[in-house]
Every structure is written in structure tokens, then in C-alpha cells.
């Protein structure tokens, strides 16, 4: 086994253990929308149908957790505001629900949280695969990219709760990986079909998967050059399985709500308090908006209940800024031949350049999607950016790699991983554990 793969196995073991802590330490149903997703799952598992907005309501036996749900006042039925989500996650979790049906909702919820951990592990593995796909021979990235994803606290949090987010993140991560393979292969048919299946499955998990579409278009142009006929062929190969898999769901949405998202109905449910903060450009330029998304990316556990301190956030921000600086240096400073011969990462092939652009584009599109969502919904959140976490990790770790002299890459990688572990230690000792009584 290659050393980096050995490290990956170790990392996955560590990750699984850490995730169990996340599962156990957060009180039941405190994760964002856990109550709503659990209620959705119960309808799928017991009534063999998907819930409908404006018709279905929250189950009364979960009333003690109403403070973790939106718009659920005491004495009134709580709206099933997660009902417009696609059904795949709930279908996958239904066997777990059936097997644990006799245990009661709280215990069931812990088991369902645990069932999310494999999807988190899948994301970590795909981070490793993506790093190896872009820079096949680089150990620094092969270690630090999956470590960065595994030790990102909010991604970890997603992979320890009852929520379809982590499955959507895993599918999006797989799409990014296959996209890079397709870029290298010139959009081979198998990759196109694979991406089509993943897009279909992704759309059947969460609507955020739609943000992959501009990337697919850009990748086909980069991989195939100016050949519209080949673009159309690739588009067809992707579209057919994607539509075949996700089409029925969108037909259901259209028949049920008269639209393809259910968002107008959600807006109607939230009309008493949903006042978006501005237009697309206003949010895009808004420093407060960006700052809040940054806070949510690292803290704000629960429904923005547990914020991180300014000092910790500034330290994280400084580290990210350093990585971005490194990335800019990587892009702007040409490598001389001698250094490039020693370190191939410094002189990427054209397909690698295209892959890095796609990863960058992925981050940009995902953030713009968060902004766009914010123009309709006040409760837009950073987690809608999370599907692109693997792309962000590759780019940031490439930046870190640029700043660390080559002879210190081994130590630099170790310091990076230890730093991320330290972040978790701080999170648990200074925030998550002390906050427990306040939930």
C-alpha cells in the first residue's frame, strides 16, 4: 500500500472516531432542520410517500424539539418545511428507520446520525481521489487535502446529523472527481454517462446539485476545444441518464406545486419573517453577508446557536488568507525549469491548468448560488457552499504547498494536519463541551 493511502486509511479511522463524538455530543435534533428531515423520513418510511408542503405537518411527538425547527409554535401544527427536498436521502435511510423503529425517535435520531458518517468518509476519500487525480504524484496534497476535508468542522457536523446535506456533498464530490477524469480523457463516453448518473442521483438528493451544470459546460469546452458537435454529444450523454433518474421527481414537483422547486410555497410559509437582505449585487458586495457565511463555515453549530469567538475566526481567516496568497503566487509566478523538473506541480500540464480552473469555478459558482438563494431567502447559509469543499481544499492546500519550501513539505503537511486537529481540540474544549448545558 502506498504511504499516502496508508495515511488515508488512518485518517478515515480517525475521522470515524471523531464523527462518533459529533454524533454523541450534540443533543438530539439540535442540528439544523434535523426535526424536519426526521419527520420527512418518517413519512417515507411509514406512509411510503413523500410529504407535501402546506399539507403535511410536524409530528406531535417531536413537539419537545420544536425550538430547533422553523415556525413551529406551541399549540399549533408545525409546517413540514423540508418537504420540497428530493427523496433519495430519505429512501436510503428508510431501512435504518425500520430497523430502529422500536427504539423511539431520540435513539433513532442518533442511529440516523451515525448512518451519515459513511457519507462523510466517502467525501474524505473523494477528496483524496481528487487530489491524486489533479496532481497524481504529490504526497503533500494527497495527505493534506483529505485531512483538510475530514477536519473541517462544519462538514464533519453535516456528516453527523439527520440531513440530506452530506449525501449531496458526497455526490457533488464524486462529480468533481469524475469531471477531472473527464477533462483528462477528453470527455470519454464512460465519464459522460457516469457524470449523468451522478447528476441525476444528485438532483434526486438535493437541488444544490444544479450548480454543477455550468461546470459541466465549461469542462466540455476546455476538454474538447471549439467543437460544438462534440459538446452536444457530451451534453446528450450526460443529460439522458440525468433526466431519466431525476425527471420523475421534477414531474412530481411540477404536478404538486406548479413549479420545479417548491420555493414559492416555502416563501409563502415564511412570509411573516422572511425579508431577504438585498439584491444579488448587494449581497455579493456585502461584507456582512460574506462575514456571516464565513462564521457559518466554521462555527454557528445548531441553528446559529454556537458561534465561534473572533480570535479563533481571525486565526482561521489568517490561515486561509495565507493559503490564498500561496495560490496567487502559484498562479502568478512562473517556475524556472530547474525547479519545475524537481517539482512537476510547479509546471502543470494544460489539462491540469484546466482542472484547477474548474475547481476555482466550482467555488465561485457555489458561492454565487448561496448569494442567489439569499435574494429570496433570508436564511441562506454557508452550507449551500459545502458541496464544493473538495475543490476548495485542493486549491487552498495547493496554496499552502506553494508557501512551504519543497524540502519541508513533509513537515509542512504534518503541521497542517496537526493544526487542523488542534482546531478540533479547541472547538471541543472551548466551545462544544462547555456549551452543552445551554442547548
Amino acid at each position, binding site marked *: 500500500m502506498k504511504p499516502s493511502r496508508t495515511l488515508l486509511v488512518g485518517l478515515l479511522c480517525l475521522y470515524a472516531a471523531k464523527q462518533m463524538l459529533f454524533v454523541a455530543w450534540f443533543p438530539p435534533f439540535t442540528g439544523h432542520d434535523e426535526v424536519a428531515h426526521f419527520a420527512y423520513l418518517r413519512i417515507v418510511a411509514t406512509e411510503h410517500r413523500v410529504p407535501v408542503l402546506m399539507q403535511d405537518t410536524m409530528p406531535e411527538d417531536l413537539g419537545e424539539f420544536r425550538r430547533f425547527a422553523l415556525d413551529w409554535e406551541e399549540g399549533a401544527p408545525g409546517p413540514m418545511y423540508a418537504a420540497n427536498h428530493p427523496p433519495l436521502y430519505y429512501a436510503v435511510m428508510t431501512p435504518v428507520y425500520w430497523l430502529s423503529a422500536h427504539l423511539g425517535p431520540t435513539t433513532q435520531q442518533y442511529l440516523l446520525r451515525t448512518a451519515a458518517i459513511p457519507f462523510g468518509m466517502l467525501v474524505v476519500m473523494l477528496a483524496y481521489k481528487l487530489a491524486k487525480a489533479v496532481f497524481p504524484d504529490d504526497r503533500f496534497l494527497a495527505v493534506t487535502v483529505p485531512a483538510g476535508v475530514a477536519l473541517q468542522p462544519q462538514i464533519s457536523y453535516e456528516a453527523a446529523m439527520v440531513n440530506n446535506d452530506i449525501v449531496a456533498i458526497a455526490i457533488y464530490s464524486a462529480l468533481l472527481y469524475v469531471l477531472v477524469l473527464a477533462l483528462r480523457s477528453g470527455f470519454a463516453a464512460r465519464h459522460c454517462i457516469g457524470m449523468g448518473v451522478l447528476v441525476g442521483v444528485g438532483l434526486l438528493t438535493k437541488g444544490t446539485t444544479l450548480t454543477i451544470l455550468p461546470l459541466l459546460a465549461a469542462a466540455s469546452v476546455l476538454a474538447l476545444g471549439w467543437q460544438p458537435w462534440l459538446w452536444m454529444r457530451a451534453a446528450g450523454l450526460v443529460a439522458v441518464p440525468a433526466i431519466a433518474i431525476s425527471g420523475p421527481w421534477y414531474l412530481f414537483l411540477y404536478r404538486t406545486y406548479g413549479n420545479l422547486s417548491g420555493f414559492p410555497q416555502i416563501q409563502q410559509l415564511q412570509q411573516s419573517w422572511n425579508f431577504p437582505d438585498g439584491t444579488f449585487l448587494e449581497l455579493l458586495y456585502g461584507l456582512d453577508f460574506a462575514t456571516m457565511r464565513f462564521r457559518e463555515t466554521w462555527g454557528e453549530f445548531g441553528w446559529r446557536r454556537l458561534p465561534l469567538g473572533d480570535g479563533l475566526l481571525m486565526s482561521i481567516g489568517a490561515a486561509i488568507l495565507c493559503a490564498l496568497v500561496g495560490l496567487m503566487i502559484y498562479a*502568478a509566478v512562473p517556475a524556472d525549469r530547474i525547479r519545475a523538473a524537481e517539482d512537476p506541480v510547479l509546471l502543470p500540464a494544460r489539462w491540469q491548468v484546466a*482542472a484547477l480552473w474548474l475547481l476555482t469555478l466550482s467555488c465561485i459558482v457555489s458561492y454565487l448560488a448561496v448569494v442567489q438563494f439569499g435574494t429570496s431567502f433570508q436564511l441562506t447559509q454557508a452550507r449551500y457552499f459545502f458541496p464544493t469543499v473538495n475543490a476548495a481544499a485542493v486549491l487552498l492546500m495547493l496554496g499552502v504547498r506553494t508557501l512551504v519550501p519543497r524540502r519541508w513539505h513533509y513537515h509542512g503537511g504534518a503541521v497542517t494536519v496537526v493544526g487542523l486537529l488542534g482546531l478540533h481540540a479547541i472547538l471541543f474544549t472551548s466551545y462544544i463541551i462547555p456549551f452543552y448545558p445551554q442547548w
Partner: protein
Amino acid sequence: MVGRIVAALFVFVFVVVILHMDALPTTGSVLAADGQVWQVPDTFASMDHPFHVSRAETLRQSLAHGEMPQWFADHQGGYPVEFYPLGVPWMEVGLWTLALGMWPMAAIHKLFVTLVFLAPAGLFYLMARQDGRPLVMAWMAFALLVLLPGQQLQGGYTELVYMGLISNVAASIAACVVLPLLSSFVSGGSWRVAGAAALAAGLALYTNPRSALALLVIGIAVVLVHGRQPSTRSGVALGHVFTRLGAVAGLSALIAAPELLSLARFSDLYYFVRYSTYESLPDFIRASTQAVSLPVLVLALGGAAASWRLPGLPVARTAALALIAYVAITLGVNSAEGSTLLPQLEATRLMPFQRLLTIYLGAFMLHALLVRFDVGGRVRVPPHAGVVGATAVLAIAVLWPALLIPVYHRSLWPVESTAQPAMVDFADAVTRARATAPTGTAVLVIGTEISQHQQLWAPSIAAGPFFYDDWMWYWHASHAGVYEPCCESAYATRGSALQRGYLQRHAVGAIAVAGDARPVAAASPELEWRHTGPFDTYDVFAVRQPTTIVTWPGAGVIDMVVDRERLQARGAGAGGPASIRHNWHPRWQATVNGEAATVARTGDGYMSVPVPAGSVELALSYRRDAVDWIGLGAAGAGWLLAFGLCAIGRKDSAAGDRA
């Protein structure tokens, strides 16, 4: 060809800015209900602009009378010029002279503000040229500067054009100009460049002494960048570096000598209200981001680092080090609030220089990324496509901001103008109030109808001492009135300035009043209505039985002359202390009946001189002493020497300096 296109882009931005700011001196017409038309200067009316126009106009009038002003008598009891130095007024008077006096100072001020806003174009050109970067990079920096308005104290359009803090911004630009010049001089040895650097540094110091911090960090950065590195033995010998730095520092100190000497001598008399502070490090980071936007800040950090990985780039490297040092100093100054170290420095006002460096480094990084722009794969990007694309986006943003920038983030928005009825009324009221006030009394202006400080236009309209209910800036904390000297320069209630005690204490003879204080004034038994303006926004009142600026026990003063730097009173008295309701300063000298007399400072910051019983002739004059004359002489020598170097300086051989 490319150079011409970029030059055309500079012209394009200049034209857009000049049109948006309506920069060319004009007058506006104001039409009254009865059909009468008034012509008033059409200039910036917001925030601090009135103060600066009045100072320039006062300077112009002093010069017209053959005087070199040392004391401004018209502002809340008067202040010495060194406490708000005359760098900007001198430049505005210079521009007025170049315009052959055809336009009023208010209109010249607008043109000058526009020129200051455009000046960084030249600065960025100098910096990019020194770094061997193409002209388009300088244009990108300039376009970013124009597009990013910043906030109130952040050096952009908002601070300069809306807030009117022109001294701060102009001084920051002058200080930043020193960076490429000093870098060039230290590395190349051209004394012509040294002369230019000294002129810029002297101007920066004389315009705003807090520029000394910026100059200090530039000096440190130049030493670190150009000084010989022990490891590589490259660079200029440290001896040469320090000699050259010393020459420029010395020459600029000569140029700014009147200011520096006065501040050194009288700094204990100076007081500045710290209006704002950075509450925490995140607060500073937030302000730094707002000043230039998050993308430009991130690019600048990348630029600061990349400048050390790319060959050449002496200015970018110097800017990077200067930026780091400046941020450290800003945070140090901020944390020193309340201590005796630099008590008069408000850290938030240091942002403009930081902003200029950040924008340059951001543009540098942006350009460095764009020249290597390639999307990879099978798509071949034409050379320079990235630069051309970014240039096009920036040009569109300048020309058509609504397309790309939300309204509250746009620059070049229209600022309130003086061409409005309230200004007609104001000029009318101030003129009539001055005519109403008996000789030897001051005029009190209360309220504002335009922006925050309309009162401060008064000295540009009529001569003589003025008091205001909101005086924007002041230099000591003893002024008598209902306000908190620690944190404001305005009376808590406007009515408090209409009380008998206040009017007597400050020798107010007439009042021009606007806004919610008008009914209070109308109801006051101390005041007598005299006039209401044609647009019914200002009233003029005479003070019943006013007190004059100079009084003494007994029969009193029968004749008085109040000039800019001279007070004379004649009369008979019973002996005792004469009260002079004008601010004390050690430079005031008094004679009583031809004999020198001691001038004492009273508790409210005014003066007191003992006078004998019987006939009294009291004269006070604000006089330069020997040190002041030395300072003036040094400044003259400094200017001559610097201009001489610029004119006749020749390049030394740089080879001899190099290892």
C-alpha cells in the same frame, strides 16, 4: 500603440470623473418666488468643505493685504495656523492664482478636490514605472481607486469628496509619492529625484503632520529593500542608503520647518478630539476591508508576497514592507489611546495612506495574474486576453457602474451643492449680521441648512471673529459653553448659546440663526430681530447691550480695532485686569499705554492684561519670534534647495554605489 490606448483610458477616466464631479468652476442660479435670481458658487457643500474653503479664502485675503498669516482670528476665538496647517489652502490659493483669480475660492476648491482625487493616477504611474510594470497596471490601480469609494475616514471618494477631509487625503497622496521617488533616489542616486522626494515629503508634512508616520515607514522600508544584504552582497551600501535618506529627510524637514518647529514648541497647547477609534482588531480588519473591498485586500496580500518572488519590483517590495509597518503603527497608535504617547493621533485617520499602498499592491497582483492568464485544456487564450478583459470590465464599471455595482457601493455619487436657496439666505444673513454687530464684537452663527457645517462658510463671506454652535475642529478644551470637550465640538443644545451669560462671555454682537433655534432666538429677551432672508431659512438678531471683545473695569472701552492678528482698545478705566475675549497663545504680546504688559491665560482659554486706572491704550499683537523667523528662513532655504536640485540636479553614477 498599446501605450496610446492606455493613455486614452486614463483620459477616459479623467473625463468621467470630471463630468461626474462637475469639477469645472461654475456658479448656480437660485430663483426666488418673486422672480429674483441669485448667482452663487456651485461647489461641494457637504461636511467639512466650508471650513477648508474659508481657510483658503482667509489666506488669500491675508496675502492680498501683504500678510503671511500666523493666526486665524475668525474661528471660535482664533487658532494658530500650525495647529491646522495651511498646506491645502496654499495649494488652493496657488490654483486660484493660476486661474488668474477668475473664479471664487469656493469654485476653485471644487476643482482642487477633483484634482486631488485624480492625483493618484500620477502616483501609480510613477510606482508602476519604477517597478518596470506596464502603464496598464497603473491604470488598473487608478480605476480601482476611482471605483472603490471607501467609507468616511478611509481615503476614498467618501472621505475626500463627501466628508471633505482634503488635508488628510492630500497629505497621504503626497506621502505616497515619496515612496517611488525615495526608492529611486536611494537605488539610483539622482539628486533631481531627491529634490522631488523632499518636496513631496515636505508638502505632506506641511499639509498634515501625521504624514510623518507614513514617511517614517517609507524610510524603514527603503532601507530594508535597498540596503545591502549581508547574504547576497547585493544592494546599496548602508552608508549610502542612510546618507541619502538623511538628505531627503533633512531637506523635507527644512521645507516643513515652520510647522515642525511650532508643533515641537507648542504641542502641549494642542488638543484634538478623538472622534473614533478601532474598538478591536476585527474592527480594524473590517475597516481595512471596507477601504478597498475584500477582493482587492486579498489581492494586495498576494501582491505583497509575490513581489518577493518576482524579479525587480523595488517599489512593490517597499510598498509591501511599508504597509506591514504602517499597519503595525496604526494598531499601536490605536492601542495607545489614553496614554501620553501620541495622544493627539486618531488611528482611524491613518487609513488613506494604507489604502493607497493596498490598492497599488492589489493592482500589481491582479496584473501579475492576468498576464499569465490561461484556461488550459484545448482552449488557446490569445496573449493579453486576461489584461484586455479585466481592463474592459473596469472601464465598463467606471462608465456604467449601475451594471456591476450596487448603489451603496458606488463611487462618484453627487454630493450636495451650495447652489441652493439656503446658501443665498446664509450669505445674506452673515453679511447683515456682520453689519449689525457693533465694532469689537463677534458674530454667532447657529444652525445649518446645508449638510453639517454650513456655519463655517461665514469667514469666506465676511471678515471678523465668528462663533458657531458646531465648530467642527478646535485646539483646546477650555472653551466655555455647554458641551463635552472630550468628545464633541458642538454645543449640546443650540439654545444654550443664546443665554445672556454665553453672549457676554464671548462678546457676541449679532446672531445669524437657522433651523430649530430660530423660535428660541425669537423668544429670547436678549435678542432683537433685525432681518429674515428671502428664502426664510435664516434670521438675523442683534444682541441687546452686547459686551465687546476687550473690556476693563470702569468707564470702559470707547474705541476698538479688531484685526486678524491685532487687537487695539482705547478708553478710560478704574484699573484692574482687562478681559480679552480672544484665545490666548504665547505669541500674543501686549502693550498698555506703550509699555509692555503681561498677557495671562484665563480659565476659558482667553486673555487677561492688567491695565491702570485712568486713560488706557491697550494693543495686542500676534508676533513671530526669533524661532518662527528661523523656521520661515529654513523653509525658504528648503524650497530653494529642493527646487534647485530638481532643476539642476544630475544623476550620480549608480554603479559606484553598487556592490
